[in-house]
Structures are given as structure tokens and as C-alpha cells.
């Protein structure tokens, strides 16, 4: 069965590049660009992993992450967070909200691929 990643990112060219990279790795990639209904979209898509931007229209990635961790069935979902704000307190805020991996923009493709592989491997082992 194909592995599925849900990419929530409002920058279309970043989303397109990541979609290309992960598709080549055998992932089924779904994309979404809105924060407001992101939690419902995640619940409906039932992905193996979520890549989540922080600054999204309607609702911030940080709030989406907090909401996810409140839900029993999504508490353990691997979430890779992307942000342009890489200061220590942003990282700490993401960690306290329950992020699985935190990555600052501009990231390299290799970093994204490595993070996705690692998170998926950890999730399938546990």
C-alpha cells in the first residue's frame, strides 16, 4: 500500500517542489493551502505523515498542531513543521506543541527527504 503524505503549505512553488521530490520517493502526496480547515482535512485524508507550514492563511500551523495533539487518533501522527522563523523560542514553542521535527526555511531538498524518511521509519517501528 502506498504511503501518503499531506503537505499543508500556502506557497505553491514550495509545495510543487516537495510534491515532486516525495512522489519520486514513492509517496502519494496530497496538498492543501489553508489553515482554517486543516485539522478536518488531515482527519479526512488519514495520512502517514504531515508536512505543516507555520504561517498559513486563517490559522497558524502552531495552532493546528496543538489541535491535532488533542485528538486521540492523531496524537501520534508524525508532523514535520516548516517555518521561516528559526529562533530558539519558535523551536521551543513547536516542541511544546508536539512537533516531530522542526525545519527552517530555506531548507535543502536533502534535509526534507531525510526528515521524511526518518519520521516514517520511527512511526512504522513504534
Amino acid at each position: 500500500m502506498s504511503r501518503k503524505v499531506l503537505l499543508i503549505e500556502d506557497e505553491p512553488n514550495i509545495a510543487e517542489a516537495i510534491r515532486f521530490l516525495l512522489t519520486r520517493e514513492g509517496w502519494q502526496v496530497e496538498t492543501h493551502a489553508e489553515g482554517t480547515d486543516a485539522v478536518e482535512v488531515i482527519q479526512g485524508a488519514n495520512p502517514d505523515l504531515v508536512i505543516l507550514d507555520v504561517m498559513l492563511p486563517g490559522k497558524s500551523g502552531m495552532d493546528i498542531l496543538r489541535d491535532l495533539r488533542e485528538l486521540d487518533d492523531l496524537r501520534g501522527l508524525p508532523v514535520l513543521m516548516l517555518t521561516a522563523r528559526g529562533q530558539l523560542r519558535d523551536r521551543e514553542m513547536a516542541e511544546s506543541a508536539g512537533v516531530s521535527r522542526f525545519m527552517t526555511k530555506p531548507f535543502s531538498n536533502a534535509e526534507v527527504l531525510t526528515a521524511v524518511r526518518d519520521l516514517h521509519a520511527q512511526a512504522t517501528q513504534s
Partner: protein
Amino acid sequence: MRDTLTGSRIRERRQIAGLRQAELARRVGISASYLNLIEHNRRRIGGKLLVDIAAALAVEPSLLTQGLEATLISALREAAADAVGQQAEVDSLEEFAGRFPGWAAVLAQMHRRVVSLERTVETLSDRLTHDPHLAASMHEVLSTAAAIRSTAAILAETQEIEPEWQDRFHRNLHQDAERLADSSKSLVAYLDDSDAADDRRGVPLEDAEAFFEQRGHHFPEMEGSEDSSAIDLSEIDSAAAKTVARGLLDVYASDAKAMPLEAVKAALAGTEPDPIKLAAQFSVDIATVLRRLAALPDGVLSRPTGLVVCDASGSILFAKSVPGFAMPRFGEACPLWPLFQALNRPLVPIRKRIVQLGRSAAEFDCYAYAWPQAMSGYDDAPVYRSVMLVRSVEEGGQGGQPVARVGPSCRVCPNADCESRREPSILSEGF
């Protein structure tokens, strides 16, 4: 083949650094006339002198001797080295640059931009928390840089890529490069360029300045009238900005009454303005004359004229921009401006020819004057304000006059040796 354009590159780099020929010559221990011959490619240059000149200009000697092609290969090599976890075909670099010079140049340019922006982010990061507009601008720049980095890496590193994906990524790269250029430009404009008045809204003073800018800093309906309420301020949004604008208009009205337009025009007919003579003629102080000169309608003065007013803390209270003279925000202007020097000598009119280091390195005639505000009681220490009139200088005009070197603000000033520097310049990082 011997390169014959090293001198031209030295000249170009010197001008970018805002250095005069005589200054660079002095730093490397040669005469200005010999440097002039070198810059016009009439003397060969190499060895220690080349290394010294490159060091004085803060560039690699190879950039001066080998020009673009070698620089391009070197930039691609750096891009390959920085690609984390990816093995680019470094052995084929020259072949790649030879077969696809345009795309190679795009890749190198994007890599340089990403590196430069990453460093700039470090430099500016502590300011982000204090300035939400700057934070939003930086987010835009970083997101675009992320898209470019990711897309360029796919194009450079993917062995077999379907034509439709390739076309799409080329298109995205082009879009993002344009967007990055725009957002970088507006970011620098936001930080330092007073010409971008439209982008600087948000605080009362800036809204008021934008209103004055839109009206050309001249209000015909206020000439001969002391009542500033005749001016409609409905296009200004906030009440605070309206209050600031009303205060500025009251000063305008007072100046216009003291120096009526027709009388000023008659006094200026056929002559260059002399603030001291005008002050005596109209029985006003120098500050009134300087403000009034900056508020005349287009065409009365022969050259563009700007104005800056500050208080004793150095905070800019009002600015009228003049092309080529950058006026930064947040009171972070260069302390060498005559505006601030006047505060050390209140009531003494200062006239100074300055050159503002930077891209244009244009010269300006400045008149500055500091005056005490009204006293509120006996034995109070006077609190001064200062005003500076900034006039463009005609190309080649009034040569031989001593010229003081000043900057826009430390962040974008190339004068590395300045004793008054508050913080490092981001120009050294290639921004």
C-alpha cells in the same frame, strides 16, 4: 590570452565601494594618476599591488583578473559544495556552464542570493521581534528563497526529469527570481530608502509624510492664510497621523506668513538661495528659511531640495526626500550628517558639502541649524531641534570644495573604517 579588462573591473568595484580614486590609491600606496592609468587599462597590474587593491576593495583578486566566467564556475562549485546530501557532478561543471550558460548563471545567481539572504537573516534576526512589518517582509523573502533553493536543486541534481516538469520548474524559478528581486528591493527600501514613501505607511509620522509627499510638499491654499484647517485631511486614516499632519501644517502656515511666496520668489530671482541673507531680509531665524525653501513649489529652486528635522534625541520628526539621498527609518541615520552636528553648535548655521556613500555616491549641499524650543519655565535647560536642507549638486559643479563622507545608516554604509560605526554593514555580506 592576457586579460585586458582588469583595470575596468577595479574601477567598477571601487565605485561600488564608494571610494574615490585618490582614497584607494592612498590605501595601496600609489599615486592617483597611476591608479587612473590602471583603471583605464593602460598599465598592466599583477602581483602584490593587485592583491593589495583587491584587499582594499574587499574582493577576491580573481574577481578582478578573471572576470565573470571564472567567477561563474567558482559560484557553481560553491553551490555544489553547499548541497547537503547531494552529489553534483563537479567534474562536469565547465561542460555544464559551457552548454547551458544561461541556466548556469541563473543557478549561480540563485545560490549567491540564498547565501546572501541567509547571512542577512542572521544580521537582522534580532530586529524581527521588534518590527512586525519587517518580520512579514523577511518571511516573504525566506519563503521565496526556500522555493528557489528547492527548485534549483531539483533542476541541477535530477538525472532524468520529464520535459513537462522541467518546463514547470523553469517557469517557477523565473517567477520566484522575480519575486525575490522585488521583495529584496522592497525590504531594502523599507529599511533605508526614503523614496519608497508608499511602502512606509503604518506609523503616524509616516502617514503624515506620505500625505505631504503626495501634495508635493506645497499647499497653495495655505499661502497667505494662517488657518491650516482649510486643508482636507480625510485621506489620512488614523487620528494620530491627522494630529501630526495638522502640527506640520501649522508650522507651514507660520513659515508662509513670515516669508510670503511672492516675496521669496522675488528674493530668489536669478540667484542661488543664501539662508543667512534670506533670514536677515525677512527677519526670521535660519530654521524658518530652511523649512520654507523646502516647501516652495516646483521650479522656484533650480535643483531638487530635501529636508530633515530631528529632535535632541536624534529622532527624525519630518523628512522630505531628495533623489539619491537615503533617509533611513527609526532614527538610525548616520551621525555624521550636518543635521546632528548642528545640535553640538546650536544657533550656528552650518553649511557643508557631503557625499553619501552607497550606490549613487552623489554629492549634496547641506545647510543645518539647531534652535531651542519654547521654554516652559525659568531655569529650564533648553531642548533643541535641528533642521537640515539637502540640495542636489549639479554634476561637475563647484569642484574643489571639501567634501565630507557620510553614510545613509550603518547597516548599508560601505565605509568600513568609520569611527562612528554602530554596527557592521550588511554590504560586506554582498547584499
